Each structure stands twice: as structure tokens, then as C-alpha cells.
């Protein structure tokens, strides 16, 4: 039944397909890439347009753009994954505490999320990056510690509604411990929607990393990252447009895949769509 639903959900299916493809590319980049993305520089063959030997052309140092785009998937995916794992852990933990214990904790945590939500994530991240300095690891920190407010609020709202349900009351009456109620009874009913937010957040983080790299704050050259490639293509857009087009397309397709997947996930996890099935 569940598998059947997954296949009937076109968004989920195509989104999943794209993500799977990007993951495979990132994992097997050394096997697929025809050239080394960093060391195979050949100034004699710089800024060549796409051809049979260089599918996406070459950049100003003569490196193969196709290989660099393949390797770039590693940076983007790692940023998406690591920052969202961090955001989800922080958001869910704080949301559970705020929702379950309420009172002081709720006011403290909700106050903090309100402040965080009022500052645009990019501004927040820029501030952290300028304090810590550029680099991929600092991107993980800047994006992994700043974007948990939605997850936190969503978790809290879910906890508040689940906490009142009679199955949680029954657990209290049966003598369940607090830990067992929070992690055994409440959390599994919270994770579905959180997963949707995490998927969409993953796409957001990838875009954010591209933006930060574009500003020169992300992965440092010569490490191939899509945002960094776009940044160095900026001045050559009219003479060598392929330098911008292919990393741009890579970002577009990956983000699209994640968003489709997130939307599809939301549709099948929506309690109303579950209800229709029973």
C-alpha cells in the first residue's frame, strides 16, 4: 500500500530519481569524471567551448568543467545533508522541550526562535562567515546552526497537539516514564512533517552555499563547488557562457529534485491524505 502510494506520487518519484542520481554522481565522481577536477589544468586549452573531449568545455585554467561539476555535487550535497542534520537535531530537541515542558522553557525557546526568524538567514550566515572566515567547514557551521527555527516551531506545535491526545494520557496512566513518552509516543508522530522541512531546507542550504561561495566565502579554490564556479565565471559570461551555464543547471536540477521530493513527501505524510486511505 505504502509503496503503491509512493509510485503514484509523481513529485516524490521524479524528485527521488533526481536526488538518487545526484547522490550517485557525488559518490562515484572519481570513476565518472574523465579528468582530475583540480590538477588537470592545461592553460593551452583554456576556455574551450563544449566539445566531444570536454563535454561542458574548459575553464580559464583549462580544467574540464564537466569533471568539476561532477565533483561539485560533493560539496553541495555535503552542505545540504550536514547542515540539515544539524538543524533538525537542534530544532527537534528544542521543539520537544518547549512543547512538552512548556512554561519557562517554552517562553525562552519560542522567544529565541522569534528573534532568529526576524533575521534573514543569509544575513545571519554572512555575519558568522565574516567572523569565522571563509571555508567549507565554516559554511557547515554558519548554515547548520542558524536555520532550525521552522523545525523547532513545527515540532513544538505537533508536540502540543499530540501531548493532549488520549494515547499519551493512557501512557501516563500506565506508568510510562517521561523519556519513554517523549521518545516513544510523541516523537514518532512529529518526525513526518519535520522530514519534509528538512528536505526543503536541504535545497535552501544548497542555494545558500552557492550564494556564499559566489561571494567568495565558501569552499575555497581550487576545490570545485558550484557556487564558486559561478563566481569565477562571472567576468567571462559573454566570452565563455558555458562556465556559468553548467554549474547553474546543476544547482537548478538538484534544488528542483529536492523541492519535488519534499512536496511529494508532504502530500503522502499529510494526515488528511492518510485518512482518505482508511
Amino acid at each position: 500500500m505504502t509503496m503503491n502510494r509512493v509510485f503514484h506520487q509523481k513529485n516524490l518519484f521524479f524528485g527521488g530519481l533526481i536526488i538518487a542520481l545526484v547522490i550517485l554522481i557525488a559518490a562515484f565522481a572519481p570513476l565518472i569524471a574523465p579528468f582530475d577536477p583540480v590538477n588537470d589544468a592545461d592553460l593551452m586549452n583554456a576556455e574551450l567551448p563544449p566539445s566531444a573531449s570536454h563535454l561542458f568545455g574548459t575553464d580559464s585554467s583549462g580544467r574540464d568543467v564537466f569533471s568539476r561539476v561532477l565533483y561539485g555535487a560533493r560539496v553541495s550535497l555535503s552542505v545540504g545533508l550536514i547542515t540539515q542534520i544539524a538543524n533538525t537535531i537542534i530544532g527537534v530537541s528544542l521543539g520537544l522541550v518547549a512543547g512538552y515542558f512548556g512554561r519557562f522553557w517554552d517562553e525562552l525557546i519560542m522567544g529565541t526562535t522569534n528573534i532568529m526568524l526576524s533575521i534573514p538567514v543569509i544575513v545571519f550566515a554572512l555575519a558568522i562567515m565574516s567572523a569565522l572566515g571563509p571555508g567549507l567547514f565554516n559554511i557547515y557551521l554558519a548554515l547548520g546552526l542558524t536555520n532550525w527555527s521552522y523545525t523547532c516551531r513545527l515540532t513544538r506545535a505537533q508536540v502540543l497537539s499530540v501531548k493532549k491526545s488520549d494515547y499519551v494520557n493512557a501512557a501516563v496512566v500506565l506508568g510510562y516514564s517521561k523519556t519513554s513518552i517523549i521518545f516513544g509516543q510523541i516523537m514518532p508522530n512529529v518526525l513526518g512533517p519535520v522530514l519534509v522541512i528538512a528536505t526543503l531546507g536541504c535545497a535552501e542550504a544548497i542555494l545558500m552555499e552557492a550564494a556564499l561561495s559566489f561571494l567568495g566565502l565558501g569552499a575555497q579554490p581550487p576545490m570545485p563547488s558550484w557556487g564558486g564556479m559561478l563566481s569565477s565565471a562571472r567576468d567571462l559570461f559573454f566570452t565563455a557562457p558555458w562556465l556559468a551555464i553548467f554549474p547553474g543547471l546543476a544547482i537548478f536540477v538538484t534544488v528542483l529534485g529536492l523541492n519535488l521530493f519534499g512536496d511529494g513527501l508532504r502530500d503522502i505524510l499529510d494526515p488528511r491524505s492518510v485518512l482518505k486511505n482508511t
Partner: protein
Amino acid sequence: MPEAIKLLQVSGLRTEFRTPAGAVQAVRGVSFGLDPGETVGIVGESGSGKSVTALTILRLIKSPPGRISAGSVKFRGIDLLAQDDAYMRSIRGNRISMIFQEPMTSLNPLMTVGDQLAEVMQWHQNLSRREGMNRAIELLRKVQIPSPEKRVRDYPHHMSGGMRQRVMIAIALACDPAILIADEPTTALDVTIQSQIMDLMLGLKDEFGSAVLMITHDLGVIAEMAQRVIVMYAGQVVEAGSVYEIFDEPLHPYTQALLRSVPKLGSRTEKGRHRLQEIPGLVASLINIPDGCAFRERCRFAGPECNGAIELQAAGDGRMVRCIKVA
């Protein structure tokens, strides 16, 4: 003698809903008539198709997933299922109106009750706003809301559940409908309030002369309000007759079992408890319904002959029953 044109004649009505698990056949060939001024009760448990029948009459089935797949609903001889949407809008709330179980969700929380009442009359009867408001006060008085001049300016959340249901009744009666369909109108109310609303409806029925189609699971409410009773099970009419016939001498094994399974006030006289007569098994699923009697698996009289197609048959003066063992 040619059949006279009925106020409402429902024939062979079928409604189904598409779900991933298969087509839910909610209404499976329901037929009945309604005469001017009479009150007919449709009684059944959840999944019997009683509410879907009511919604189908007014074409309030959302499509998709719902679909009215067969039958006709003739209102004064005109088949409502064949008319366009504009025609249906001129019928709904005007010639045929409906009240629902949950008075809170059926009222607009952002409009005063007076505006909501006046709106219906402005729409259907071309009344001015001022005339509409005056009529609204009059109607609120008719449904026995105290100091109606003040209450017209109230919003629904200012009112109790019983008061809101009175407002719903006032809206339903605003255009003097020929038919009032009431879908579990007292189910969400406390018992003393239910009693008030039933009295109100009985009184207004005499005054307005509308025919009432009363849909409920509560046999007590049916016994109190209806002249004729239709018993539904698994999307079909299993028995129909006058309220006295149904309660005094139920013919269908389901009706018999249903009446016996209700705890009746005052029935426990001797010391000690007795078990209720229960109906074994589960309410029939409406997906992939097998041929034959839908009740047979829970029926103590069932035999192999119950597996064939079983028609609703006449059983004496105006009575109908769908059981091969009875007819």
C-alpha cells in the same frame, strides 16, 4: 391510475467515492418518496449511506472523488440530477434547505447571524437589506431566541451550541422551503438542549408545513419525530414503513436486532444486570460488496438463499422490506 407527481421522488440512486483502496459504494440503489408536509426519518449506523443520500439529493457530493452514478431525484417531477448548477443554486436553501450536525462549522464565523439570515433572503427573494434584517429578527423570534432584536447583531461564537442550531434552523426556514433535510440536527447537543430543538422543529413544522427528511442514528429521535421510517444498511434501504410498524413490528432482521440492541431507559427493573442483545460482527465494508444480502454475515436467520440478489419488496400496505426470509 397514473402515479401522481410526488413532492420528492428518489429512484435508484447510486453514489460512489473513488479511493486508493477501491470504489466505496456509499449509496446503492436507494428509492423513496416524500409527500408535502410529512416527516420521513432515515435511520442507520455509520456507513449506512444515510448522510450521503441526503447530500446527493442536493448534489452536494464533491466530485472527484464522489460520483452520482445512477438514479434520479425528482423534485415536483423535475430531475435535479439533470439540471445545471445555476438551477441547483436556486433550489438549495430556497425550495430545499438543509441543516447539519455541527452548527459551529455551518455558520460563517465572520458574519453576524442577522447578516447571514438576511443574505439568504436577499439572494433568493430579492429582499432589500432592511427588509432582510426585519425578516431575520422575525425568524429568530420564531426559533425562540430571546431578545432577537439584540441577537441579530451577535456573531456565532457569542452563542451556545443550542442557540447556533436554532439560527441554522432559522436560515433553513428563511425562504419557506418545501423540503427541509436535517442531518443529525441534535446529535452534537446535550440531551436537554436536544429536547428543546426537537420541540422547536415539531412546532415549526406545523407552522411552515415543510416536508422534513430527518437523518439520524438515534432511534429515540426517530420515534419522536418521524411519521414514516426508512432503515438503511450498507448503502441500501432494508426496510420502510410507518413509525408504528417499524417500532412495533420490525420485519427485517437488522431492524429487529438494532431495536433490541439499544439500551432503553427503564428496561432494567430486576436486580442485577443483563447483557444487551448485541449484533455480532462488524458493520459491512462498502468496498467490493458481494452480491446478496449485506447483512447476512451478522444475521441469525441467514441461509444459502441470502447469497443471491435480494430486492426491496412490498410487505403489505406501504411497507417495504429487503429480506428473502420475510417476504
